[in-house]
């Protein structure tokens, strides 16, 4: 679930970017770069949340093992 793997990392990176901009005296080039990275992350996270649907799996006892659907 690649989407999922990056959601937590995306949120953490976003918080880090805002903290860095808060902190301070970054040169203009770097600020603008961070800003566009942050804006991209915001869009990505918003769309991941808005498009998600809950997946449900069942784990049966050993005799009837649930196989993943990739065979």
């Amino acid at each position, binding site marked *: 679930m690649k989407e999922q793997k990056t959601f937590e990392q995306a949120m953490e990176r976003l918080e880090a970017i805002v903290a860095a901009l808060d902190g301070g005296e970054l040169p203009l080039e770097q600020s603008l770069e961070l800003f566009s990275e942050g804006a991209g992350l915001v869009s990505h996270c918003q769309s991941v949340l808005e498009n998600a649907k809950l*997946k449900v799996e069942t784990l049966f006892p050993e005799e009837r093992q649930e196989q993943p659907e990739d065979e």
Partner: protein
Amino acid sequence: MITVTVSQLNRYLKAVLEGDKKLSNLYVCGEISNFTRHRQSGHLYFSLKDKDSALRAVMFRQDAGDLRFQPENGMEVLAGGHVSVYERDGAYQLIVNDMQPRGAGAMAVQFAQTKERLEGEGLFAPAHKKPLPPYPRRVGVVTSADAAALQDIRRVLSRRYPLCALVVSPAQVQGAGSARALTDALNRLDRRGNCDVIIIGRGGGSAEDLWSFNDEGLARAIFACKAPVISAVGHETDYTICDFVSDVRASTPSVAAQLAAPDQEELLRRLSGLQSALRRHAADKLYTSMQRLDRLSGGAAPGAYENIVAKKQEKLDFFSHLIYNNKRIFIQERQNRLAELGALLNSVSPLRVMDRGYCAAFRDKEAVRTVRRLAQGDELRLRFCDGWADCTVDAVTIAIPKGIHRGLPR
């Protein structure tokens, strides 16, 4: 009429009773009385009685070792085993291999004993409680497949955090064998489910219904789980051993789901807030950079390129309004224009002017912009684009060329 010895009769009776299928695997409910534990052998000897009659019973040491409670006189129990005859005394008895407390009093005693024992071993200690992951990818649930609890959890997760996957490990939650079923389901889930957090629970019920959640084996399995466990058994006021040993206790399955996963509404709000913070920073940054540009352009001879800078200033204002729209491409364009501006300013910079042959005069390290400040004999430093010359003023002449600049310099 036949004649037999006592031993023969007793042996015969034993065979008769042990041969009867109905007597070979049954549960008897009654109250314990005359209870003793034989010190040397470890066997338990007692009677089971109800209001009309009594029955001898024995539980041998190896079965007694599995007991999860301390049998006492007066305790209501369910004793399982088979009927046989103790030949030596000519008495029939129930040979017990399994015993469970029954009735509120007995259950309360077992609960207290189990709780005390596990607490003494440190299974409930706060130091062992694991924190819940903030963004779980897989949420496991051990509960009955048909019951409302599972649907509640599914509904709450679907609303709050559909990003995760729900992994169900179904088990019977009450009745005979349910403690074992729950334990197996939990172990299976922890081993194969790859879950970031596990919820174990069920909806409300009577004390008997919830009883398997007081099972010591289940409690130990919860303690041994790799994933953090949220217990959600019954209602607000029901507390089971599982609630004490779990990492977090929830009053109901729905609450457990709320604790397990973040709320996407809140996440979306937080993302909006981060977006605003980003825009604000970008706008601030541009503004301060513009101010700095202002200062730089103001330091050169006034009038010569005021107009040009004023026009660029207007454009910068325009750009900063566009920044409030957070599209990435706009940022790129603005960056390009800033570069253009830099080039433009550079083309009218004092250094370029000096390239064309003009020089700047300084007296005592101060720029001299007007001849009116000069006197004969003043020592000047003339700065050229490639160096400077130190000179002395011979004579000063004031002349104002027509139409070149607007105001009189200071």
